[in-house]
């Protein structure tokens, strides 16, 4: 099981702030493909990956990063702090 968290408009499009998922995905890109294939709301949220950032266990990562050993995956738009 992996904890998946969504922020900002990704959270709004997917409709939940977080969920625990069973996945066989090896990388972040695999997980995105798996979710997008599963339901329309994921396909919509992940439609333009140039506007999506990912963090693995609270560290910024990229879509090629492996999920082995990861407990928490977070998806969000480019950050707008400050």
């Amino acid at each position: 099981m992996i904890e998946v968290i969504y922020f900002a408009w990704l959270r709004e499009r997917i409709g939940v702030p977080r969920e625990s998922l069973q996945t066989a995905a090896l990388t972040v890109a695999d997980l995105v493909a798996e979710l997008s294939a599963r339901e329309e709301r994921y396909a919509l949220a992940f439609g333009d990956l140039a506007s999506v950032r990912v963090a693995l266990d609270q560290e910024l990562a990229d879509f090629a990063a492996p999920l082995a050993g990861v407990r928490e995956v977070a998806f969000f738009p480019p950050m707008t702090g400050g």
Partner: protein
Amino acid sequence: MRVVVQAEAFDAGAELNAFSAQAAGAGAVVSFTGLVRDNGGALSMMEIEHYPGMTEKAIAAMMDQAAARWALVDALVIHRFGRLAGADPIMMVAVASKHRVDAFEAAEFLMDYLKSRAPFWKKEISATGGAWVAARDEDEAALKRW
């Protein structure tokens, strides 16, 4: 060095004074305060979402980088989340150093990283609804100089 991530409002002037007072040996203190922009008198509100846990870690890592790169006496970051009213301070950065160049550069570095690498997302709330603030290309480009 101190990182504060909170929903509550804060008093930027009082924070600046307290920060300066304890920065022994500093000759220069630079502060940056980010305000909710009051758009032509229309009462604007802002909702800020963040990633609890990652936020504090990401900011602390930025401060460590700044401290490794410039001769700093101290640094402070305060960032709010939740709902903010127009003209409220959203966040502040303060940096103390012996000379002004270190303080200015470290403050700009921290601001550039906070803008694009700290997990905060701003939503502008108006009478007609809410709109997520889009990341600006200039903000991403600003990171390249460091």
